[in-house]
Structures are given as structure tokens and as C-alpha cells.
């Protein structure tokens, strides 16, 4: 008989417990019995019952007794304890700072959104961001197991090693020093895992979870507006490239979307692209015409993207997304003239203000140390 080593049994137990926890996590509103978990994971019922009891004793699951009304023993049911840990996202945008704290189901508990006033350095931005986050955590009354992970999105590329690589038009505070500065200011949160992500990828993640990006499909997510950037996906997974710098559209000679944005705002007198889009949607023909010209300005850069990645779908996010056909129509026509074959083009459906934050929360949930004491 082959010898079973103690560490093998312990590893298997750990794998099974993790599997049970992920099963609970996937449908946080559902209650599960030991039989449900046993069936779902292919375990024996006694093993499943033991694992769920361990999860309950360690605080990761909540035990409730369900009475069926008949004279039998009540059934033990388990749900994920959503507040065993909290996660957070910080979206450091071109003009505003958005901080959000959520539970383990991804439900946002607290949110802070305000202009950041364009801090002139990484130190000043780190101070603002840390203060906003710490305040939210403090305000979150009710028992919870502490903040586990935070994902920070910013207008720059973040490579595989977590280094920040500013774009040519990244703000002054988006530098390689930001992670260590913010990390120091958040030291009072023990065991916190801090990660950074470029805004386009964070927004694309939200669109994958809740919007127009399809699992398993080649796609390109384009952020156009106050922040411009690209997140390519191959077979539904973010494509990062050899160093994590894929999609650096700011480096393309043919693309100066920021200048195009400045030009259309000056031409129309609108203060922001949001304002211009709102006017266009309200029927202002001048605004609509300006948006059409702006979309044609985007076309050369989008052509390069589409021909480089040859996606099945292109999703337009950012401030322009609410403009829908006002932008998609002229952009699609311009691409069709040059490319012939074009991908399916849609506007993002996740709110462009919240998208990077929601993508950040999704990523933060993936970085929780599930099942640890």
C-alpha cells in the first residue's frame, strides 16, 4: 500500500477547505448545507461538514440553524461571512479621487469621490489617498476583520513587477515612488496587501465582470476622454505583454487623443467632455457634430489598435461611453473605410466614473488571503 505522508493529507485538507470557501464566496447570498458542498466538490458529507465547521470556527463562514418545521434536528446551513475581511479600491483619476471600501461579496459599503486638486507630487497624492482610505475604514462601524487588500488604479502603465511606468501625459504625481509612499502611510493597517494597476486595465476588469466584454473573446477596451488608454484582451484575459506594458497607446505617433480632447473643448466652449456628451445627448446639434469630429480624430489610433490585435470586439469606455451612437457611428464609419472588416463596436455599460473602482475591487478580492486566521 502506498505510504501517505502527513503533509500530503494536510495539503489536501487545505485544498478542500479553500474549495469550500470559494464555493461559498461565489454566491454570497446563498446558504449551503454540508450536502451541497459535498456534491459541489465531490467530497464525502462528513468531510464537507468538518470543513464548514472549521470555516465557521475561524470566522470565514456564518452558521445558522434552519428549522424545517418537522420534528427533526435543525439543518446546519452556512454562508460566507462577508465582513470577515474588507477590501478597498482607490481610483486616482485625471481630476478626481475615488475611494471605496467593500465587503467580501464586493458590495460597496463606503464611498468617497471628490476632486483631488491636481497635487504636484507623489507625496501629496499619497497623503490624500491614504487619508481618504483611512477615513472610510474608520467610518465603517460594525464588526469586521480589517482591511485585507487595496488596489490602486492610476493613469500610467504598471508592469509585471508592480513598477509604475508613466505615460507621456501621466500627471506629475504618477511616478515610480508612489507605491512605497502610499505603503508607508498605510502601515497602520496590519497585513494590508497593496497593488497598483493602470486605469484602462482596471476599467476593463469591471467591464469583464459586469459589462460588455465577453469571456473567452479577443477584445480591445479603449478609454477615451480625460484619461486615454487601452486594455487588450486575448481570449477574455488581459494581455499584458512581456513586461506588463502592452497597450501603451500614448507612445503612438499617430495618437494624440489628449490634444484632440483639448481641441474639441476649446472649439465648443464645454468645460469637460462629460458636459459635451450631455449636450449632445440633449439634442444640441453643434455638440453632436463636435463629438462626431472628435470620434474621427480617434480613428487613426483605433485603426492601429484594431489591426495590431484584430479583436472580435471593441468596447469604448471613459467619458465618451454615454454618447453611444453619437461617437460609435462616426468612428465605425471611419474604421470601415480604412479597414474593411471591423470588430463589433459597443460602448461600455459600466458607469465610467465607477468602472476603475469596481475593477479594482474585483482585483482586490482576488488578492485576499482567503481562509487565513
Amino acid at each position, binding site marked *: 500500500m502506498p505510504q501517505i505522508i502527513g503533509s500530503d493529507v494536510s495539503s489536501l485538507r487545505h485544498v478542500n477547505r479553500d474549495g469550500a470557501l470559494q464555493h461559498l464566496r461565489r454566491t454570497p447570498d446563498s446558504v449551503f448545507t454540508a450536502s451541497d458542498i459535498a456534491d459541489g466538490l465531490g467530497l464525502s458529507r462528513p468531510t464537507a461538514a468538518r470543513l464548514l465547521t472549521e470555516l465557521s470556527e475561524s470566522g470565514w463562514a456564518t452558521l445558522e440553524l434552519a428549522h424545517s418545521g418537522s420534528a427533526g434536528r435543525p439543518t446546519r446551513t452556512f454562508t460566507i461571512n462577508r465582513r470577515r475581511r474588507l477590501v478597498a479600491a482607490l481610483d486616482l483619476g485625471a481630476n478626481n479621487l475615488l475611494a471605496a471600501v467593500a465587503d467580501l461579496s464586493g458590495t460597496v459599503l463606503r464611498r468617497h469621490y471628490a476632486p483631488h486638486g491636481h497635487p504636484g507630487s507623489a507625496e501629496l497624492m499619497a497623503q490624500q489617498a491614504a487619508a481618504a482610505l483611512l477615513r472610510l475604514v474608520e467610518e465603517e462601524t460594525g464588526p469586521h476583520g480589517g482591511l485585507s487588500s487595496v488596489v490602486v488604479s492610476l493613469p500610467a502603465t504598471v508592469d509585471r513587477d508592480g513598477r509604475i511606468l508613466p505615460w507621456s501625459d501621466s500627471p506629475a504625481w504618477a511616478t515610480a515612488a508612489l507605491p512605497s509612499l502610499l505603503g508607508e502611510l498605510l502601515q497602520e493597517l496590519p497585513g494590508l496587501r497593496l497593488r497598483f494597476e493602470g486605469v484602462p486595465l482596471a476599467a476593463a476588469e469591471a467591464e469583464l465582470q459586469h459589462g460588455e466584454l465577453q469571456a473567452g473573446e479577443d477584445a480591445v477596451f479603449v478609454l477615451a476622454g480625460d484619461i486615454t488608454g487601452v486594455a487588450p484582451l486575448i481570449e477574455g484575459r488581459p494581455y499584458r505583454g*512581456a513586461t506588463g506594458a502592452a497597450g501603451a*497607446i500614448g507612445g503612438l505617433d499617430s495618437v494624440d487623443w489628449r490634444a484632440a480632447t483639448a481641441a474639441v473643448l476649446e472649439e465648443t466652449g464645454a468645460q469637460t467632455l462629460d458636459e459635451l456628451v450631455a449636450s449632445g445627448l440633449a439634442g444640441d446639434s453643434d455638440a453632436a457634430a463636435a463629438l462626431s469630429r472628435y470620434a474621427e480624430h480617434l480613428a487613426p489610433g483605433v485603426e492601429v489598435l484594431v489591426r495590431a490585435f484584430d479583436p472580435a470586439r471593441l468596447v469604448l469606455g471613459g467619458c465618451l461611453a454615454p454618447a453611444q451612437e453619437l461617437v460609435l457611428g462616426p468612428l465605425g464609419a471611419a474604421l470601415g473605410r480604412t479597414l474593411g472588416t471591423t470588430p463589433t463596436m459597443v460602448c461600455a455599460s459600466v458607469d465610467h466614473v465607477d468602472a476603475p473602482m469596481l475593477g479594482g475591487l474585483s482585483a482586490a478580492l482576488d488578492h485576499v488571503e482567503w481562509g487565513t486566521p
Partner: protein
Amino acid sequence: MSDLDGSAVASLRRLNGSKVLSVLRAEAYRKFTVREMSIATGLSRPTVGRLLDDLVEAGWAQSAEGRPGATGRPARRYSFNRLRGLIASLDVGYAGVGIMITDLVGSELSWTMEWGLALETVESCIDHVMPLFSQKLSEVSADLGLDEDLPVLAVSLSAPVIPDADGVHVDTLSTVNGWRGGSFVPTLRERFGDVPILVNNDILLSAEAELHLGALSTSDQGMFCFLAWFSSIVLIHEGQVHRGTFNLAGDVGSLPEYRWPDVIVEALESSGFNHPASVGRMLEAAANGHEAAQDGIRSVGQGLARGIADVAAMWDPDTIVFAGQLSTAPDLLFEPIESGLRALGSEDFELLRAEVDPEKGSCLGGVIKALDAIDWTV
């Protein structure tokens, strides 16, 4: 004793037979004893012995007496029958054709190229290629001392087209006008019968060859820059050619933004050469110190640099390989290209020249795809 389902036994036998064939193919020049094959496959010796005899009978394996040793009867040895059939790999274009015939491990048995043609239509292309192929096939048979031609087990056709699922050509910028909307498949099917017939873009096949046999073999996220009269880029993702949704991934050269076809034409004209076949003459003249030709080469490099850098910015490759006729150009072609790439700020990629013979690349890539397409289950 339990009753075994006959179909299950047959399936298991087929599975095991395929396993043995797979080991034979993987070491196609090795002669295995039954014992050695039993170790390699984990199957019992009696089972392996029976399966090897089946494979010999079906023509997939050959057997021979082993060499006498000090004691005992020498063990019979088995090897893959590389000449059970042949692979036909055809590379066609407006001005030239290439024909490669290989055995079942891809070893070249025949190679020929013809240039200076003008194949205006699919029909004229086929009318030229098929008799030439038949002639080469006969020569192979004669070289092997055979009275009859060996069967062709798979066919690859490489062309400046992108085929749709039915094998009908989809346009690329380099597709010959008279070829648009046509298809090679019906005629190939009539000639070769019910074997895998693959039609693929010629540059994609060159990239496949470089991936399996050349400078891209260690690349995960690479770029294959094919630089010739018609230039294009093929992307490598997780060690495989990334075709994209419409088989156009990387093909930025065709965009008006970059004007790659015009870049080559202008360079040729300015240096006094004005025909596609003159790219080779321009390269030769530049190597011999002809100043106008050198200026032409330099301007080609400058013209291609932006598109290559833009795709590199998008793709973030670990390796960039330059292939095609222009990849043999002197360094003054590559200086502006390298300068554009370094301006991206990354030093993390390797710049290499292709290692596969540019004339044979498409055919070799075709052989690789054809071997993959054969049903090797016994």
C-alpha cells in the same frame, strides 16, 4: 471473468496503438526493441509486440532483425516508416512558386523554386504548379528507386491570401487582383483526394517556421517582422502564432497611416530600380557600395520604423525577429528601426534576424502545419 465490451477493447487497442506510433514518430530515427517500447509507453511487452506488428502491417512502422550480440538471438527492432507517405508543401505567388516535398518527419526530399512568372489567375497558377509538382514527385520516386509514387498524405498551400473557413480567399493588400474571390481548394481536392488540404497566408506560415525552427523558438510574446516587397508583422502569443479574429493580427503595414507598400516602391524608384524583383538587386548594389541603393535601403528602414515601433508599443514583445528578403539588408536598414524601438524606453526585448531560409520559410511552415493536420490515430 467479466464480459468486456468489444468496442471498449477496440478503442483501447486504438489508443495504445496511437501511443506506440507517437513514440516512434517522436524518435523517428531510432530503432526500438519491444522491451524499449514497453518501457517508453508503460505497456506490457506482449501488448507492445502485437501493436508493433499491427503498425508494420499498416505500413506505419518498419521492422528489421537486430544486430547479433554476444549471446542469444538478436532482438527485432522497429522504427517509424518515414516514407509511409509524403507531404506536399506549395508556395505560390504572382511572380514565383516554390514546391517542397518531404517525408513524414519533415525531411526535405525535393525543393524547387521558379521566378519570373506572371500568374494572373488562380487557374493559371494551378495550371503551372500542378504539372511541376507531378514532375518533382516522379523525381522523388526515381531517387528512392520506387516504381510508383508514394501517396501524399497532406497538402499545404501557401499564398498571399487569407482563406475563410471554406478556403475561399479573403483579400489582403498583397493578394493578386485576379485571385480575389477564387479558391485553390477544389482543384487540390480533385488532385489529392480526401487528405488534409490546408491553405494559409504565406507570411503566417513563414512565422510558423521561425517559431518551430528558428529565432522565435524561445519566444513567448514575439513579433515576426516580414520585410520584403510586401511587408507585414505576425504576432506570437504564448509561443503560438496569434492570428486574431480575422487572421489579420499585426498587419499594420497595410494601413494608410504607414504606407508600407509605398515606402518600398519609392525606395526602389529613387535608387533606380523599379520592379518588385529588384529588391534583391537593390540589396546587392547597396552591399557593393552603390550610394543611391544605400540611401534607398536607409529610407526603407525609416519608413518601416514607425509602424514596427507602434506595434511593439502595443504588443510589448520579448523578441523581435526580422525575416524576409530585406532581413538580409545591411545594418543601415535596421538602424532607424532599432532607434525607434529603443525610444519606447524598454531594453527588455531581443532583436534578431531570422534563422530560417527566407525562400523556404513558407513551405517549411506549411510542412509543420500539414504534419499536425494528419490524423495519426491508428
